C-alpha cells in the first residue's frame, strides 16, 4: 500500500505545509535551529528524533503555540506565521491535543461533534431564530461524527463518557474529533504513546488509510510506527534536521544511526563519553547533505 502513496507523491510535488528556516530559543537554549520541512499533499511526513531533539517544540510551532524567533510557516501558499492556535481549525488544519483534551462531561459522540464546528454555520442569532434548521444541521453533524467513529472502530462507545473508557479508546476519540472536520492537514503528536504493539499496528494502518485523503505530519518517538507509515521522514537531533528522506534512506543514514539509533540501542558501554558527543558532531558534519529542500 505504500507503493501507491509513493506514486501519488511523485505526481504531486507541490508543498501543502512548509516550515522554512525555523529558529526557536527558550532563554539561552536553542530548541530548534534552521529547521525546514515540507508536507506534500496527501502524504505522511514523520518527524522523529531522540528525546530532547525538539520534536515537541516543532509540533508546537506547527500548531501556533510557539511563535518561531525566525523562519516562516506556509500552508497552501498562505503564510501561517503569527497565526494563533485557534485560527488553524478554520484553515483546514486538524490536530490532536496533548493530554487528549476531551470534554469529560460530554459523550464520546458529542466530543467528536464539537470538532466538526469548522463546517457549522456562524452567527448565533440566525441559529437562535432558526432552530428547525439547526436541528437538520445537528443531524448531519451527528451522522458525520458517527461515521468517523465507526471508521475508527469505536462507534460502540458513542454514548459513553470519555472518562469511562480505557486510554487507547480515548486516544481514538481524540483522533476522531480531529478527523471529523475533514482537515486537509492533520498534525499528530506522539499518537503511539501508551499503546500496545497490536494497537500500534492498527494505528499505523489507520494513518496509512488517511494518506490519500489528507496530508499528515506525524511527530513520533516510536521508530517502527514512523518507518512503516511515513512516505517521508525528517530526523531531528539537538534541534537541527540531521537527515531526511524515505524510510529506507533514513534507516541507512549514518548520521541517524549515530544520533538516534545509537542513542536508542545504546550498546557502546566501552565508550560512554562518545554517545552524546556524536550528535552535534554528526550534525555539523552534514550541512550540505541536510539542506536539499530548504534551499
Amino acid at each position, binding site marked *: 500500500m505504500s507503493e501507491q502513496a509513493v506514486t501519488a507523491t511523485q505526481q504531486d510535488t507541490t508543498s501543502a505545509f512548509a516550515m522554512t528556516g525555523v529558529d526557536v530559543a527558550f532563554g539561552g537554549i536553542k530548541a530548534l535551529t534552521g529547521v525546514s520541512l515540507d508536507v506534500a499533499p496527501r502524504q505522511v511526513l514523520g518527524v522523529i528524533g531522540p528525546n530532547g531533539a525538539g520534536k515537541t517544540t516543532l509540533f508546537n510551532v506547527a500548531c501556533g503555540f510557539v511563535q518561531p524567533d525566525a523562519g516562516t510557516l506556509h500552508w497552501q501558499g498562505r503564510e501561517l506565521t503569527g497565526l494563533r*492556535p*485557534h485560527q488553524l*481549525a*478554520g484553515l483546514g488544519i486538524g*490536530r490532536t*491535543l496533548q493530554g487528549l*483534551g476531551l*470534554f*469529560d*462531561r*460530554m459523550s464520546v459522540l*458529542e466530543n467528536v*461533534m*464539537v*470538532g466538526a*464546528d*469548522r463546517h*457549522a454555520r*456562524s452567527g*448565533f442569532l440566525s*441559529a*437562535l431564530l432558526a*432552530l428547525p434548521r*439547526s*436541528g437538520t*444541521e*445537528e443531524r448531519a*453533524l451527528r451522522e458525520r461524527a458517527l461515521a468517523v467513529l465507526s471508521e475508527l472502530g469505536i462507534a460502540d462507545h458513542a454514548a459513553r463518557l470519555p472518562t469511562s473508557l480505557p486510554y487507547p479508546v480515548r486516544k481514538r476519540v481524540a483522533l476522531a*474529533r480531529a478527523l471529523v*472536520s475533514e482537515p486537509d492537514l492533520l498534525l499528530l503528536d506522539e499518537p503511539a504513546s501508551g499503546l500496545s504493539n497490536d494497537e500500534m499496528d492498527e494505528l499505523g494502518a489507520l494513518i496509512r488509510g488517511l494518506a490519500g485523503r489528507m496530508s499528515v505530519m506525524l511527530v513520533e518517538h516510536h521508530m517502527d510506527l514512523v518507518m512503516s507509515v511515513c512516505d517521508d521522514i525528517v530526523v531531528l537531533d539537538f534541534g537541527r534536521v540531521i537527515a531526511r528522506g524515505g524510510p529506507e534512506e533514513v534507516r541507512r543514514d549514518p548520521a541517524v544511526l549515530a544520533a538516534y539509533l545509537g542513542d536508542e540501542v545504546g550498546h557502546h558501554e566501552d565508550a560512554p563519553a562518545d554517545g552524546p558527543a556524536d550528535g552535534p558532531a554528526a550534525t555539523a558534519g552534514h550541512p550540505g547533505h541536510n539542506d536539499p529542500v530548504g534551499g
Partner: protein
Amino acid sequence: MQQFLTTALTGLTLGMVYAAFALALVLIWRSTRIVNFAQAPMAMITTYVALVVIDAGYSYWIGFAVALVAGLVLGAVVERVVVRPVEGKSEINAVILTLGLFIVIHALAAVIFGSRYRSFPAPFGLRGFQVGDLNLAITGFGIFTIVAVLVVMALLVALFRLTDLGLMMRASAFNAEVARLLGVKVGRMLTLGWALAALVGSLAGLLIAGGSLVHPSYMDSVVVYGFVAAVLGGLDSPAGAVVGGLLLGVSLSFVSGYVGSELVALAALVILMLVLLLRPGGLFSHAAERRV
C-alpha cells in the same frame, strides 16, 4: 389541610421563580465562573421596560415580550462591554464589576423611573380556585408562572441537548481552551450564554412583579434566594438549580406559613450555610470536590 395545601402551592409557584433565577445564575457561572450579582437589577430594569410599554397602552403580552428581548440584549451588552475587558484576569474582578453594575443599574432605575412603588399588572386572575370546600391557593397567574418557567426550561434543554449551537455552548463552558482550539467561537458562545441567562432572569423578574408592586430594589431579595437555590443544586448544574429552586421555594413557604414570615430571609441564609458546611458541592454532588 387547607393551610398545608396553600403553603405548598405558594411555595411551588415561588420555587419556580427561584428556579428560573437560579438557572440564570448557573448559566453564567458554569461558563465563566462568575456569580452575576447584577442579575437582579438587570431583571428589575427589564421589568420597568415592560411597565413603560404597558403604560404606553400596549397589551401585557407585548410588554412581556419586549422585556424578554430587552433582557436578551442587555445580557449580551453586559458581557461584551463590561465583562469581556476583564476576561482572562482573576474572576474576582468580574464579580466586583457585577456588584458595581448592581449599584449603577439601581441608581439609573431610580433616576429614570423614580423610586416609588408602582403596581405591575398580571394577565391572569389573582384569586384562587375553589374545589369543593377547599380553597386552592394556586391562582391563574400562579399557573402561568409555573407553565412559563417550564416552557423556558424545556426550550433551554432543547437548545443545549438537541442543537449544534447548544453543543458548542456546552463545550465552551466545560473547557473554553479546547473548544477554541477546535474552532468553536467561544467569545460568541459566552455572549449568547449571558444573553440567555439575562432572558431567564428577566422572566423571573416579570413573574415576581406580576400582580404586585415594583420599585428599584424589588428583585434584591430574589438574588439571595436564587443564589441559595443555585448553591443547593451545586452551582454547576442547570437541573440542580431547578430542583434547588423548588426545594427552597417550598421550604421557605413552610417557614413563612408555620413559623413566621419575618424569618424567611434568615431561613434562606441558614440553608445556605448548612449546604456550604455539609455539602459544598451541592445536594447532588458525588464528591465534595469541584474543578475550577
